[in-house]
């Protein structure tokens, strides 16, 4: 039976690509072990990504038969560029403090408005050009690319920074295998400063 799920297709494609890769000859000791280790790492990354809430914010929600659900045709592609947000909404009365778009990809709070990132391997708008070091340093430091602006709520950096290097590498490897989606996510808006049109 053919696995029709996009993740399954990607893993099969990755396995075939790794087995066909000429960089390590078949007769070289360790070639198969390397391939198996790589696949295990990718699978570990898939497991972490799909159980640690990444899709809850990085995959836009749409209406499903039983209510809002992640639109897996745009898996992990972040806040849709077609959904323009130019200013934060009026803050709700206390004790309410956070709001989100129905897509679950734009979040407003005391920090301003944050937009979830495109985690797909698209070269121009996603993580396509990111190195593993940049990915790891972003999570560890809570700063864009490890040295830029702060990563904002609701991204659970305070918890995710505790991932081991091995797990972060697994996540990074898995994210390289998912379908690229071209979608440019805007930078955050700071509070009290709506954009002029």
């Amino acid at each position: 039976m053919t696995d029709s799920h996009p993740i399954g297709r990607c893993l099969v494609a990755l396995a075939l690509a790794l087995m066909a890769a000429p960089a390590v000859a078949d007769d070289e000791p360790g070639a198969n072990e390397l391939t198996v280790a790589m696949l295990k790492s990718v699978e570990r990354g898939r497991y972490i990504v799909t159980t640690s809430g990444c899709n809850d914010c990085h995959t836009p929600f749409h209406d499903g038969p039983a209510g809002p659900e992640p639109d897996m045709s745009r898996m992990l592609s972040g806040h849709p560029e077609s959904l323009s947000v130019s200013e934060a909404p009026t803050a709700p009365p206390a004790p309410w403090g956070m709001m989100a778009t129905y897509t679950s990809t734009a979040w407003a709070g005391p920090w301003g408005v944050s937009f979830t990132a495109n985690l797909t391997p698209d070269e121009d708008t996603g993580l396509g050009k990111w190195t593993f070091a940049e990915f790891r340093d972003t999570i560890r430091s809570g700063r864009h690319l490890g040295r830029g602006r702060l990563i904002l709520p609701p991204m659970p950096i305070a918890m995710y920074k505790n991932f081991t290097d091995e797990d972060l590498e697994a996540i990074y490897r898995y994210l390289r295998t998912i379908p690229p989606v071209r979608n440019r996510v805007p930078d955050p808006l700071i509070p009290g400063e709506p954009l002029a049109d």
Partner: protein
Amino acid sequence: MAAPLTILSLCCLLLSAAAADEAPASLRDTGLPAAGGRLIVVGFAPQYPLWSDGATKRRWLYLPPGTAIDASDPDAWVFPPGTKLWKEFAHGDPVETRLIERLADGSWRYVAYAWEDGEARLAPAAGLRGWPVAAAPGGRYDVPSQDDCRACHEGAAVPVLGLSALQLSPLRDSLAPHAELPGPGDLDLVGLVGRGLVVNLPTAALGARIDAASATSRAALGYLHANCGHCHNERSSVTDRPLVLAQGARTGAQRVLETLDGVPSEFRLPGAGLRLVPGNPDASVLIRRMRSRHPVAQMPPLGTRQADQAGLALLEAWVSLDPDYREVAHHD
């Protein structure tokens, strides 16, 4: 008895190896004479200092005996293992001393020492945020985490930022904000080469200076080089579109300006959509983010709680300059 002794010796060796990998608990034990250590060091003063909320700074270099810095590539000096560089931050009295050290395996270690009661002790790897220091602006001071150190120092070709041909050129920029004159015994580029501490420097680099069309432009571009260039340079991917604010032997003012002037900013602010609008500082995202200390918008993004008013005055004057004095780079 031989076997237990061997095991004991091995344990001692392992313990001493582990200890050698750890930074000393006291600054004195790093060898810095200013903290009571005994290494022979040289002081230096970069002509374009990093803005550090008004702290005064002193800097020292140590090279292991018989070694030197290889300056074959004037933009990426190679420091020998064992190199140590200290930077002391003071608000009246010393508050903090940072140490960058190149280890035997070629990697770099970044640690900070916090001064209290006349002694500087190793700060936690996570830093000390909001440490009460009465003389610091707002009475608070941030000792950076080791991740913060890496964030700034590992974005450039070499993690040593203030010791370079441009920064130590004998052709010092008299308009550079906050520039501290070299102290007695401090060495500039000529002194370092003369003492054999810097070798293989191309002759042309001895007169290195910021490429600019006017004195104001030179000071402004030098400020950007020192305060922004360690992240915004040719090798950095911190922005989607290239933003090059560092200068070097292969990168002059023209490259800086072509990545700034009229280039759309990824960061959106009301009334400001371009990185730099010649003649209009208020519409330039570069200036607006320098003015801001909102944690998301501020530039630089870390290491400072107060905007640099002198630096801003210089940059605003530069942005307002007649284009002929900003954009046409020439050497004089």
